[in-house]
């Protein structure tokens, strides 16, 4: 019924646009009214080499080195990557693998810094207070150098989006203050407390992409944040093209492509980026971090983390140095004993369940939750058969048919799964949330995506091997033919030349060895 009313309202022009599907989970915004508190500096900070989407960084420091806050300690490898910085001053005590936020308990090479307590800053980066007169490409390099990645949780390197491309002029800059995950309030508090800084960041983004119009999108469950942003907007100069838009609360409105549709009525085509339809979208936390990077010359070394959950005595929003162990945050908020408690990294809808709280805060740590066994049990009971009620397709924001997709993934019919657009699933979890049979649909989708990716890699490898082998056969045949031709020539002249034979032999073995040698490293990759 609500879906029908919504469609009707849209047709009648009462509602501009709204992404399809979605759910209304209990929001549990326990920490919405708690002001951001600074937690200070933990004695040891652990900085994993990969805190972004893309390839991991490699360390630039070795054990025993002194480092300063904001000093680059690991350099990015490859395009889709940003460097890591020391989040306080101190000494590198070890570089070894440490557990990161991953359900498997998987580890990642990490740099351990023992804080010296002085928190001395590396001031080599100049503040660019006059950024309006700075070339956008310089600012873009600044965003990369400062290690900025999307702080909403996806940690996509920020600089990649901040580009001017003549083919795709940016019409609208969208500031994402939706924060649709239950429990999380870090963006909410940041907007309430740092509205002016966020607007500075937004102005920088608009300057960088050459756009003059912008939208600050906030859901209606954060009226105080919308008010604060509007107030700051009214007093700020040169922000005439920017407006605050309050959207009705619905999960997953914060998802980039869904949000763009809600605001503009335009769909980002599958496989394309928002910039291809003239839009870019940045999270409010990232925007504030960009402002600090440009105007203060400060790399990304801290972030706001919501520490919450039904099993936590004092939910809060904390300003935390990257690398701070999550356990210490829970301890600060009154939780020491983790028996019968599940720790989640991120929100309950898309976050990872952790095996233990001994992992560091990283760039993607928008929040961390301590959920009671009860809260988890309701989500993770044994699955029953699918009764095809179709609730999953109703709520799917990508308009997929999750129950059929799950069937295909479960029975390894991956070609069918791809035909039903498995890769358009954003893993928002709405389908699993409403499933009366408690089917872990998203889990099946992850399995399917993983298997398909593996299959593609294997196929690519097999294809490469086949090409190598065919190339070799062809080459050998050619050499054989050349040899035969030469022999017949020799026979015709009746004058054997013994020197010719060994020469061809060495040539053959030399060319034969080269591809074999190059094949080895390829096999490893």
């Amino acid at each position, binding site marked *: 019924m609500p879906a029908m009313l919504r469609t009707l309202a849209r047709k009648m022009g009462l509602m501009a646009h709204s992404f399809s599907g979605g759910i209304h989970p209990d929001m549990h915004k326990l920490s919405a009214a708690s002001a951001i508190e600074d937690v200070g500096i933990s004695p040891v900070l652990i900085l994993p080499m990969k805190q972004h989407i893309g390839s991991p960084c490699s360390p630039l420091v070795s054990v025993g080195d002194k480092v300063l806050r904001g000093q680059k300690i690991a350099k990015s490898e490859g395009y889709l990557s940003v460097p890591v910085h020391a989040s306080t001053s101190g000494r590198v005590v070890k570089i070894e693998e440490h557990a990161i936020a991953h359900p498997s308990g998987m580890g990642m090479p990490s740099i351990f810094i023992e804080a010296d307590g002085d928190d001395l800053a590396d001031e080599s980066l100049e503040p660019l207070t006059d950024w309006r007169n700075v070339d956008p490409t310089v600012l873009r390099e600044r965003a990369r150098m400062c290690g900025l990645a999307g702080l909403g949780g996806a940690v996509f390197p920020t600089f990649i989006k901040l580009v001017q491309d003549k083919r795709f002029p940016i019409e609208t800059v969208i500031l994402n203050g939706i924060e649709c995950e239950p429990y999380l309030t870090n963006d909410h508090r940041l907007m309430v407390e740092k509205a002016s800084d966020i607007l500075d960041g937004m102005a920088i983004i608009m300057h960088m992409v050459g756009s003059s119009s912008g939208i600050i999108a906030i859901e209606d469950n954060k009226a105080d944040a919308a008010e604060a942003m509007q107030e700051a907007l009214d007093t700020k100069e040169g922000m005439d093209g920017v407006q605050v838009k309050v959207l009705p609360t619905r999960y997953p409105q914060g998802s980039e492509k869904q949000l763009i549709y809600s605001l503009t009525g335009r769909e980002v085509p599958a496989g394309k980026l928002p910039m291809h339809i003239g839009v870019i979208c940045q999270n409010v936390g990232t925007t504030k971090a960009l402002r600090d990077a440009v105007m203060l010359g400060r790399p990304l070394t801290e972030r706001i983390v919501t520490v919450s959950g039904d099993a936590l005595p004092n939910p809060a929003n904390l300003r935390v140095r990257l690398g701070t162990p999550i356990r210490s945050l829970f301890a600060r908020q009154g939780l020491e004993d983790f028996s019968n408690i599940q720790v989640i990294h991120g929100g309950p809808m*898309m976050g990872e369940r952790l095996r233990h709280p001994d992992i560091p805060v990283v760039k993607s740590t928008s929040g961390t939750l301590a959920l009671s066994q009860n809260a988890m049990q309701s989500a993770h009971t044994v699955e*029953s*058969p699918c009764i095809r009620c179709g609730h999953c397709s109703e709520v799917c924001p990508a308009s997929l048919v999750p129950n059929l997709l799950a069937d295909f993934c479960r029975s390894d019919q991956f070609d069918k799964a791809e035909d039903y657009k498995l890769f358009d699933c954003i893993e928002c979890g709405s389908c699993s949330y409403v499933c009366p049979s*408690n089917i872990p649909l998203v889990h099946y989708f992850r399995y399917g995506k993983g298997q398909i990716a593996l299959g593609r890699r294997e196929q690519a490898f097999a294809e490469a091997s086949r090409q190598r082998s065919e190339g070799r056969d062809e080459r050998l045949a050619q050499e054989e033919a050349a040899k035969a031709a030469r022999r017949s020539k020799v026979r015709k002249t009746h004058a054997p030349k013994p020197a010719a034979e060994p020469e061809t032999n060495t040539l053959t073995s030399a060319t034969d060895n080269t591809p074999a040698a190059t094949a080895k490293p390829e096999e490893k990759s």
Partner: protein
Amino acid sequence: MSLIMLSSPHAHGGDSIRMMMFTVMLALLPAAAVSIYLFGWLAFLLIVSCMLSALATEAVCLKMMNRPLSTVLDNSAALTGLFLALTLPAATPWWMAVLGSVFAIVLGKQVYGGLGHNIFNPALSARVILLISFPLSMTTWIMPMSAMAPAIDLYDFSICATIFFAGTDALLATSQLSLDAISMASPLGHVKTEATLGVPVAEALKAYDYSYLDAFLGFEAGSIGETSALALLIGGIFLLARHSITWHIPFAYIGTVLLLAAIFNQAAPDQFASPMFHLFAGGLILCAFFMATDPVSSPVTPMGQIVFGIGCGVLTWSIRSFGGYPEGAMFAVLLMNCAVPLIDHYFRPRVFGHHVDEQNAGKKQ
């Protein structure tokens, strides 16, 4: 707990199969109450025996397949039993009711692999098996109390128990009543019989003393749960409001029947009954709101559901107007059940972000 892979999301809305099935049973409460008001203890005995035998059959099946018995209580078997009871004539004997329930659970559901795997609506398939196996019993309509009194009192438990356990003949033998005195034709059956004799619809209905109000309230002959359009509509609206079903199937289904009936009634009023008659007659409303919307055997996507509903509507009206049986609703639903995999395949929603060029072009300023 530790063996379950804990993949996100870590929150759940709280819906369960048991709750969904229970909601449908609640929605059938008005219809069940009206059936008991109209047919007294007969309806009560039918409902109870169908539900109990469906539960027992389910338990035996699960036991034989070494599956956990706890799923007997997921309310799906009980609901199937209730559905079946509501589609039966009041004078159905106990063994036929039990046999129907066994058919519904075994042939309608468990042979396909149990809950969620059946192609056909279990209750409807059992109802059709009974109709084909026992055509006379399944088309003998005992008069409701509103028309019957004072011939026999259906609120008298012993009379009803005699009919239910010993058969209608046993009662007739002791009370010197003829079958004609306590039974009547259903409106659909009457119109069909008269039509074969060349009597125009309007005259046939006049002779039957047909009234739209009675049909709407349920004071007419028919299966115990299908007579009252009012009670079924209350249940249907409850399901829509609770979001247990969506509007697509019932609206498309009933809309199609009304449209076809209206067109043909305009063209040839002597031959074809009016849309209102079709709406209140037989099992249309029961089928549209409760049977065709059975999630397992209906399409998943909104577009598919509309196609499914239209198909059901066309078949229902066609069978009623041209077929050998007076009522076609259950055949229509079962026939469309077969088409569900095909409908699901061809009427997929447009995936977000695909084929958007034309969409975006229109909206670009």
